[in-house]
């Protein structure tokens, strides 16, 4: 299957410090990939490079066969590369319906309209209802975001991302900070993501990674040290070294 998302030899340095070194990833539609790595592995920089927030020193990002390395962050979203945020960044004074409505309007090129309201646009409302229902947020559709629970805000983040009809979805720790009781809902939402969507999830929680991903990529010190099946990741010597190196050393001393 042809790749919908490709990163080729991506490299970025700040001054003399190389934070992302020669990273290459290729994903096909429907892929479920988890990107993991110890703290300071360069995951955040990688996300910023891919979304176009910062430019790479060298290398290439391709989206649906088109090179988008020189396209800015907004252009990449419009071409189908959508991200969610590690900590929810929702508009506190707006309602879930408005969030999803705004995303649908933006995607369909109507966010600049000076009259009317999405509440009276049947096609937009149909989509808003469908998405909010799917994520179990329909009851809260007209509440202010500041009044709804954190777990529900995370679900709303996913709803907003889906409303943009992405080809590639970058999920930055979708369950971070959510109480244990609510993670089930989020996992269900992740399991229900459209089948043809390529999903790259950045995550710390290994349980979630193993349940969600069909493929795991491990980033350490800015380079990919593992790219393969979840079952193999814990057996890999370099991964053990990257994650357990310090502990192994500590126990040795003790």
């Amino acid at each position, binding site marked *: 299957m042809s790749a919908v998302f490709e990163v080729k030899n991506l490299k970025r340095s700040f001054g003399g410090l190389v934070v992302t070194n020669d990273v290459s990833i290729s994903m096909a539609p429907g892929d479920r990939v988890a990107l993991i790595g110890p703290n300071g592995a360069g995951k955040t920089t990688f996300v910023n490079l891919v979304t176009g927030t910062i430019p790479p020193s060298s290398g290439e990002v391709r989206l649906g066969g088109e090179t988008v390395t020189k396209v800015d*962050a*907004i252009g990449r*979203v419009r071409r189908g590369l*959508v991200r969610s945020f590690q900590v929810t960044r929702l*508009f506190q004074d707006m309602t879930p319906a408005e969030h999803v409505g705004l995303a649908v309007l*933006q995607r369909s090129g109507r966010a600049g309209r*000076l009259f009317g309201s999405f509440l009276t646009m049947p096609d937009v409302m149909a989509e808003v209802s469908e998405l909010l229902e799917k994520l179990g947020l329909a009851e809260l559709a007209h509440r202010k975001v500041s009044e709804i629970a954190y777990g529900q805000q995370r679900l709303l983040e996913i709803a907003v991302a889906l409303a943009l009809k992405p080809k590639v979805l970058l999920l930055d720790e979708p369950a971070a900070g959510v109480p244990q009781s609510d993670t089930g809902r989020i996992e269900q939402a992740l399991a229900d993501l459209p089948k043809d969507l390529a999903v790259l999830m950045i995550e710390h929680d290994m349980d979630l990674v193993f349940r969600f991903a069909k493929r795991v990529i491990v980033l350490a010190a800015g380079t990919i040290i593992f790219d393969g099946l979840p079952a193999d990741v814990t057996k890999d010597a370099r991964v053990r070294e990257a994650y357990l190196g310090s502990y192994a050393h500590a126990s040795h001393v003790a």
Partner: protein
Amino acid sequence: MTVAMNNQTTLSRPRGGSFKRDLIGVIVIIVFAALGYVLFPDNLALLTRILAVALLVLSLDLVTGYCGVATLGHAALFGSGAYAAGILSAHYGINDPFLMTMGGIGAGAVAGLLCAVIMLRAHGLPQLVLSIALIYLFHEFANKASSWTGGSDGLAGIMPDAVFGIYEFDLYGHTAYFFGIALLLIVFVLLRILVRSPFGMLCRGIKEDPLRIRAMGASPNAALTKMYVISGAVAGTGGALSAISTQVVALDALSFTQSAEALVMLVLGGTGSLFGALAGTLIFMLFEDYVSAANPFHWLTMVGVLLIAVVLFAPKGIYGTAAAYFSRRREGSQ
């Protein structure tokens, strides 16, 4: 199936009766206009001036209240409209009040575009300073181009024709007053539609988190530029009204003081609400008229105290605080 039906109804529920509130707003404006006409028949000039400034403050509310751009140079858009309308009449003999208003709207929009292009290059304090620099630049430019603007003597020789060829702009200011009321009502209704529109929603999003808006694939700067142009058109309407009703344009129309006062009025009433902008303008201007007649310096002290008091005790402004109080009471009684 039933569940889906239920959800359908939750989502398409019409919210808070916004059309009802539009209607109430229009009625309130008309009632106040009538009251003003009955109570102050000899002071229609002041009331018309309040209408013109109200348009400026509404326009400022669009960029400051709805988009979160703080500016101390908004009179640039107002003054551009005033000069355009004035110059059309004084230099080109285009005296039709509607054409003059159109000229003001156009010039205001162009000035808005210019200000947006420059101001959106920076954020925070530098942006505020840019707005100040811009208003001084406009002011100096108008002062220098005295063959067009009359410089510091002001632009005279503005002689608007009768409205519809019937209603002359009389000495008592009746026609100007009704003309102003009509403009304000039209603008108010259009802005109510605007702030509810998809674009209005986009702008509210930009005010809260421009980065999030970018991640949704929309360009905050493009939207802000568009809002600035709209805001310029509104301020230009106010400027044109001021030129038509007073038949002169003074350099003050393009001053830092006018900009700062507009901001004070907006905050006094409450940002992010059209009613707040109107309330702030009305209260400030009436207050100013009574106090400054006595002693301009005491007036300054009182505005200062007023500002400090608003910041400390009513940060949402008079209308905002009152609205919050009543909605709390309503929730409490439920």
